[in-house]
């Protein structure tokens, strides 16, 4: 992969961010902060020329890599990206987020929307489900990989640390877990609520192939996603900014976990996202 691919992705990213803002604004509820922080991570997996081997036509097969969004409340990012890369979700369907009857539930629902790998929303569970997919791929000698994204608040759940020991024991070299290390949760910063630092030392101590990157830089993300170990599962600690791309969210990361922008804020956010695109940020 070369710089021109990263440049192309960077030029496509603002559209994704704008859709996230519009989706959350139109239903006046949802989680902007943690959706915006994970955009580059998820897009590097799904984008054209991205890391994951997948295609809309292969949804019902095992001939593909898999991505599980364990931090299910960040699902607007995933919907916007699935739309951007050609899965059958139109822009007008994006704007049905959280409406009665919509396939786009407030948290991922794999029964309603077949492109969703796991129904999540109760934190901690998606990581285990991802581990199970990796176990069966390994059993079948299926060469595909499994990726899962967790939050840094989510990392407090005991179930995450059950995965931390279990995936190493089962030698799941085909499993990559990514930490959206945005430093905030609901009741405060992660440091205030229940400090989990330093994550890299913890995951290393559990036996993971551990990498630390900037989670908004495509080059670093791709480098990390393609650095694997034959026997060890990989943990990518991705430093991110909660609310990335919208200044008033970035400067109040706790406040924008789960509140929707009003009309005025939505307008300002969309303007900023557009400006950032113009100056190539």
């Amino acid at each position, binding site marked *: 992969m070369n710089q021109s691919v990263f440049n192309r992705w960077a030029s496509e990213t603002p559209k994704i961010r704008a859709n996230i803002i519009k989706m959350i604004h139109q239903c006046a*509820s949802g989680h902007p902060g943690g959706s915006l922080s994970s955009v580059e991570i998820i897009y590097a997996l799904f984008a054209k020329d991205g890391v994951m081997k997948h295609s809309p036509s292969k949804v019902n097969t095992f001939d593909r890599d898999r991505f599980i969004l364990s931090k299910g409340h960040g699902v607007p990012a995933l919907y916007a990206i699935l739309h951007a890369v050609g899965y059958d979700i139109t822009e007008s369907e994006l704007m049905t987020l959280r409406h009665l009857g919509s396939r786009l539930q407030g948290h991922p*629902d794999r029964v309603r929307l077949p492109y969703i790998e796991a129904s999540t929303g109760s934190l901690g569970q998606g990581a285990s489900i991802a581990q199970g997919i990796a176990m069966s791929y390994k059993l079948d000698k299926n060469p595909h990989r499994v990726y899962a994204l967790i939050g840094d608040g989510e990392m407090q759940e005991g179930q995450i640390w059950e995965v931390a020991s279990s995936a190493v024991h089962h030698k799941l070299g085909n499993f990559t877990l990514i930490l959206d290390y945005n430093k905030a949760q609901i*009741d405060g910063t992660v440091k205030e609520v229940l400090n989990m630092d330093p994550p890299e030392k913890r995951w290393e101590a559990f036996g993971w192939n551990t990498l630390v990157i900037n989670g908004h830089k495509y080059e670093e993300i791709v480098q990390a996603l393609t650095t694997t170990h034959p026997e060890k599962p990989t943990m990518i600690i991705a430093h991110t900014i909660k609310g990335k791309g919208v200044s008033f969210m970035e400067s109040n990361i706790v406040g924008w976990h789960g509140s929707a922008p009003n009309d005025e804020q939505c307008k300002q956010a969309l303007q900023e996202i557009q400006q950032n695109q113009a100056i190539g940020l």
Partner: protein
Amino acid sequence: MGKTASRKAFGEALSELGDKYKNVVCLDADLSKSTMSILFKNKFPDRFFEMGIQEANMIGAATGMSFSGKIPFICSFAAFLTGRFDQIRISIAYANANVKLIGTHCGVGIGEDGYSQMGLEDLSIMRTLPNMVVLQPADAKETKEMVEWSINHVGPVYLRLTRQGLKDMNMDKFERPGIFPEVKKGQKVAFMACGGVLEYALEAAHNIAKEGKIDPAVFNANCLNPIDNAFMSMLANNFDEFIVFEDHTINGGTGGMIAEWMSENANRPKRVRRYGIRNIFGESGTPEDLYKFHGFTAPDIEKFAKKYLL
């Protein structure tokens, strides 16, 4: 008149009562702004414990605190708290630990977040546990009464609370669990309703009564455990038909409890109709859309009851 969410009434009550009851402590799992335990936290920072997103550990730690003289209130969404059933079952209930469980965001009334955040099975599972008192207030005053009752009761209590505002139903007094307050007098037919649905069941009952054919009584079915046999016998002696309205699965909840009791104990056969979430999962939508979709508005209830009873 303004409505008050029972979670808000809980937060206010606990922070008021904290002065009088010095042994009360409060734990939350990264949802204090939603469960409203933040009101207690602001007033008694030393007696509030932020446990992070660790519901199972919170249940265990609270049990330990109760074994050392404290009266812990543990707070999260009903779905996540009762989701740790094994910990509740063994650490708390089996040991008769003096822990008060606060499950907020019950029912489809929470709206847009969708099924994963909705407490829809919590009553059914919690009422299987022998020591567990299972309560659901129908307005702000009753919530406050129940919080104080819980502090004085030795043993575990589960309190089921709403995200959405509840109308004042004049529930001024909560004396003991098992006696359902009568909200409207009536004959032959009794509507048993709880939590956020009570208001609409009452409105429907009044409309039905106006037509002069049926005159349903309405009770606030605010407790699933313990069961008061004398009170239930009174119901059985006075009514032939029961319709039970709840923002909860119909399987094993309030309707389940009443149907079980009537089929075992009533002196002659009764018909008990359960009315709630019927073998489907919840989903996203505005609270108003969801109440319409599940038939919880007063016109829906009225239409159903007339068709069912006439």
